[in-house]
Each structure stands twice: as C-alpha cells, then as structure tokens.
C-alpha cells in the first residue's frame, strides 16, 4: 500500500542500521568466545606460569609460586631438553613426509576413481579410528613385539638375526604416529582433489598433455591447498605426541611431550613444564608462518 516503492533499505532507521552494523560482530561472537576461553586464556595462563618461580627449600612444604619474570625457566628447559625438542620435530617431519607419500595416492584414487563408492572408501579409511586411540597403539605394540605376529615368523625362518627388534626404536614410534595421522592427511587432500574442476583436466588432455604433465601442471598445483592443510594437520599434533612414544618407544626415543608430562606430573616443576610447552608452541608457530609464506596459498582456510 505504500506510495514510494524504493528499496526497503533506504527507509531503515538509524537503529536498524546500527543493528546491521553490529550483526557481523554478533555472529562472530560465538567464535570469539570460543577463542577466548580455549585459546587466549590458557595461553596467557601458560605464559604467566612459565615466568613464575618459587624459593627452593629442602622440605616438602609447598611454597607458592610468585611471578618474578623468571626467564631462567626458559633457559633451563632449553639447555636440558633441546634434543628431545628437535627429536620431536624430526619425528613429526618423518611422519608428515610418510603420510603424504602414502596419503596422496589414496586421496587421488578415491577422488578420481572412487566412483559411486567414494563415501564408502572414506568411511573405510576412518573405520579403524572408531577404536580407542590407546587400544590401537597397544595393538601395534603387540604386533611389533619380538614374539609378535610379524617378527617371530621372520626370525624363525632366519630372515632376521636373533635379537632383532623394531619395538623400542625410532622406526616404531614414527610408524605408530604415522598410522594415527594418516586420515588427517588424506581427508584434506581428498577435499582438494575432489574440488578440482574436471574440465581443466580435460582441457589439458585435449591439448595433448601427457598424463604426467597433466598431473604436474594441473592437478598438483590445484591440490596444493589440500597438501598445505594436510601437512599442518599432521605435523602439529605429531610433534606434541607422547602416547606413541611411550607405548612404542625405547631408551632413545623420548619426545618433548613426554618430558612435559614428566615435569608436570612427577617433577611438579609446573613453571618449567609451561616454559617448555611455550617453546614448542613458538617453534611450531614460527615454522608454520614461514611455511605459509613460502607456499603462498590463500585458500588454506577452506580446507582446515
């Protein structure tokens, strides 16, 4: 019934406009609160704790920690535990490379040749993960043990020397973490590969590109965001692992996660534990920033 049929927006009151202006903030507040509660507050607490100290005495009376800008905590844990820190990075890198080499063909095959059963294949990939994490690792311990399924047989037919073992070595730890990390590599890769416009692939073929050239020039570059996301989702959790290293590791496979757990639970050295966690986090953040810059992808967030 209105006589002026202009766009409704024009007739909005200033109150409406204000509300409209606030809408994005309102909508993002859920995420912001999430970040604040689960990221900012714990991070700040850790940072503060890592700079606290307590006077030492030879009693078991607990002396409260006080905030003293005690940077020496960082120096102490770095000099004591840097080798475990580097070892964790090295294991995580090995895991990332391993899962990428195995995961890419799997994701490629499902995305391009999975046909009607794509979801079934993805489900199969995830199926082992319906079993508890700890149980899966313990089963690997069982399989890889000297008297276990694999090595008892090989040793019996003299393919392996007496006393040969995998359990308790770096190989076992990297194997265990890789096994658990595989889906986190395959899923983002699959999403990236699945999204590739098939017309681009066909166009390349029409222009007489060999299959290897199609892969190198078209498919691989277009799947890079997935590779980036996969590497991130694998490397970061792998570097903080302590379960696999405990269950499958040996005397020379201690990872930084185990050290943090020790400092915290047995050592009751909370400030040092916090300092070591912060160092690990800082290293990871720096590494990721450099890596993101080097790879220069902008659409990573789509796949995370």
């Amino acid at each position, binding site marked *: 019934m209105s006589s002026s049929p202009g766009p409704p927006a024009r007739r909005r009151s200033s109150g409406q406009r204000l509300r409209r202006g606030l809408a994005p903030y309102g909508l993002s507040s859920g995420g912001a609160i999430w970040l604040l509660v689960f990221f900012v507050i*714990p991070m700040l*607490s*850790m940072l*503060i*704790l890592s700079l*606290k100290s307590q006077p*030492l*005495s*030879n*009693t*078991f*009376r*607990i*002396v*409260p*920690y*006080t*905030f003293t800008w005690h940077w020496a905590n960082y120096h102490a844990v770095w000099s*004591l*535990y840097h080798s*475990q820190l580097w070892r964790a990075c090295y294991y995580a890198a090995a895991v990332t490379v391993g899962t990428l080499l195995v995961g890419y063909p799997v994701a490629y095959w499902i995305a391009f040749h999975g046909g009607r059963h794509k979801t079934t294949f993805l489900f199969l990939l995830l199926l082992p993960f319906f079993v508890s994490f*700890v149980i899966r690792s*313990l089963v690997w*311990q*069982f399989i890889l*043990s*000297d*008297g*276990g399924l694999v090595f*008892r047989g090989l040793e019996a037919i003299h393919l392996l020397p007496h*006393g040969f*073992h995998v*359990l*308790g070595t770096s190989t076992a730890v990297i194997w265990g973490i890789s096994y658990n990390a595989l889906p986190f590599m395959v899923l983002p890769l699959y999403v990236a590969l699945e999204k590739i416009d098939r017309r681009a692939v066909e166009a390349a073929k029409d222009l007489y590109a060999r299959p290897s050239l199609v892969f190198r020039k078209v498919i691989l570059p277009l799947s890079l965001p997935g590779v980036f996301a996969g590497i991130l989702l694998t490397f970061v959790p792998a570097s903080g692992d*302590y*379960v696999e290293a*405990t*269950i499958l*590791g*040996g*005397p*020379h*496979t*201690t990872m930084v996660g*185990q*050290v943090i*757990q*020790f400092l*915290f*639970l*047995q*050592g009751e*050295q*909370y400030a040092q*534990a*916090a300092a070591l966690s912060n160092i690990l986090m800082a290293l990871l953040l720096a590494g990721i920033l450099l890596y993101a810059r080097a790879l220069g992808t902008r659409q990573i967030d789509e796949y995370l």
Partner: protein
Amino acid sequence: MANEHLDPAWIRGLTEPRLSRRDMLRYAGVGAGAVGLSAFLAACGAKTDGAAGGTSSSPASFDWAAQQLHHKLNFANWPYYIDTHKGTHPSLDLFQTQTGIQVNYRVPINDNAAFYQTLRPSLQAGKSTGWDLVVITNGVQLSELIANDWLIPLDLAKLPNFAKYASPAVKDPTYDPKNVYTVAWQSGITGLAFSPKATAALGREPDSVADLWNPVFKGHVGMMSDNTELGSVGLLHTGVDPATSTQTQWKAAAASLMQQQPLVRNYYDQSYINALENGDTWITQAWSGDVFIANQSGYPDLKFIVPKEGAMFWTDNMMIPVGAENPLDALTYMDFVYDPKIAAMLANYIWYISPVPASKPLVAAMPGGAAVAASSLVYPDAQMQSDFREYYVIKGQTDLNAWNNIFEPIIQG
C-alpha cells in the same frame, strides 16, 4: 602339595570371570595425562596467595573424641586391589553388616603422582577432597602430604587389630615413624623377573642385579621408568644401600645406569610385564605380585627372584586426608582390615604381600588358596625379608630436584 599342578586361577575361573588387576593397570598410564590437566590448570590459577595448608610443621592434632560414626565411607583405591566376587566385594559387604558403615568404594588411582595432583588443589584451598580414605605408596607424594599437614593423624588406640596383627615390616616405617598418619594396605617388592628360556645363554639362572648389566642380554633388558625404582637398582648395583645413600653415590649409580643403557630395551611403566610376556625383554626389573599373577594366567615359566643384592620393599598405605567428612568411619575400616579373617580375604585376591602374617593359615584353607599361602611372594619368610631394602626417603624439594636431575636424564634419553 597334592594339587600343586592345579592352577588357582583356573579354579577361581570356575566360579567367576576375573580380569586381572594388571589388565587394567596397563592402560592406566596414558590416562594420567588427562587427569593431570586439571591439576595443571589449578597450578596456573591464582593459588599463589599462600593458601598452602596450616602453618605448623609439627604433627597437627585432631580431636578424635569429638568424632562420631556417620555410617558412610568414601574410599579411593587402586583398580583390582580388593577381593571381588561377581561384581561385589565380600569384605566390604561384611564390613557393612558388622558396622553398619556403607562404603562408597571407588578406584580412581592409577598412578600416585596423577592421583595426588587431583587431591592437591582441594587440599591447598582448604577444602574436602571428597575422600575419607585413600591408598598411596610411600614416596614423594606421601611425604608431601605429611609435610603440608594434609593428613589426619591417626588415633592408634582405636586400632587394636593393627597393634596386635600388623607385620613388623609395616610398623613404624621410615617414611612415617610410629605410624602417625598411615597404616599399610598391602606391600610388595621390586626385584628381578626373567624368562628362563630366553636367559639360557647365561648358562645359569640370573640371581643378581648385576645380571641386568650382562651384555648377553643386549637389547632385551627391561628397566623401570619410575626414577625411584631405577635409581634404587642402580644403587644396589654399585653396592650401596639406597636408604642411606648420598648424592655422590647417586651420581655413581647414574653413571653405571648410563653405561648399561645400550643393553636396555626400554624404561617401562606397568607395561614391563607385557614386554616380558611378549619376549621383548628377557630379564627385567619387576614387581612381585605381577609376576605371580602372570604365572597364574598363561605364563607359568616366568620367574621372579629377590636378587642377592636385595629387593626394594614398598608399601601402599591407607590414610585420611584433611577435610574428610567421615574420619571415624575410615579409622574403623583401617582396623577392620587388620582382622586376620579379612586380611585373608584380601590376600587371596590381591596376591601382593599381606601386612597380616596371621592370615596365612586362613588363606591356605580357602578354595584355591593353598598356592597363594605357600608363595613366599605373598608371605615372605624371615630369610627373604632380610633381603628387603628400604628406599631412600627424599627429604624435600631440593633433594627431589637433585634426585630427578641425576636419574631422570637416563630415562628421558
């Protein structure tokens, strides 16, 4: 002796399904991280304003005369550490019939350190932990509970059974002189276990701690990841009595453990027993009860010995945390389990060292109890007891840091 070949576990299996205590424990270490998180957050929090316990360092007094029974008891114990029959605990049922006290029996303890971290925030804030009775091994956590006046001193006059029946081994222990705060639940020893078949290359049965250092077993020696256990065996190996050891001796022991490292397969938590069963390790540090249980459940050939250098004797202790709502009920229970009849019910299920030697003939008379009563691991004879050694009692934070800094780098290689 006639039915020696009959497996007690099998006899028991006729009447009830039984998961071993060990099955549960082996999964426990991993969960500890999650438990620890809450304590970590508590440590991050604002509890820096000196809320730590009372102010005196002498044993706090407690007015037992003013206490009354509430007919309730919140009891925190380790998994599979009490007699169990078809989902019930006969000794607890008996306790309720006799005293009218209903026990809320829970098993939240898988690890002394992790469990202590769940108690600590409440104790530090001066609040009740929710438990009236907890079971903690002698060690750093227990020392810390005592030093901060976080345990209620016991009224020994109300523990006549303890006075009458407790084994001398658990009376007046070094870590709690005169049993001011604790009485033993069960004890055990840390000695050696081996598979006779795998260690045949030695040409004789292993009988000494030094055999853990024998290069014949390269890559198949199991050591413990608990640095108290590891350090103690290192001290025994260097000919030192751990209880009276000094820092210089710790360093020498650590050097010897470092030397041993190329032979070591891994530093294990409770899972050392699986490694031995699976053949990953051939000879290992071991807890007495575990090997006895393994013998009864499919690994009859594994052997546990008290090495000639001695075995470490430890005790899991009952204690009442400050702020407990039902302390008199807890004290009543403490005395109840020192009744030999009850001690026998417990010993015949738990298979560690009973604190009540008088329960032995009663266990022998129970179905399947003959082998348990005959085992010197459950009822050690005097000669065996003379080989038991006490741990070094860590005196405080500087002491603990020194011990950790000397022995922990071996494990965190």
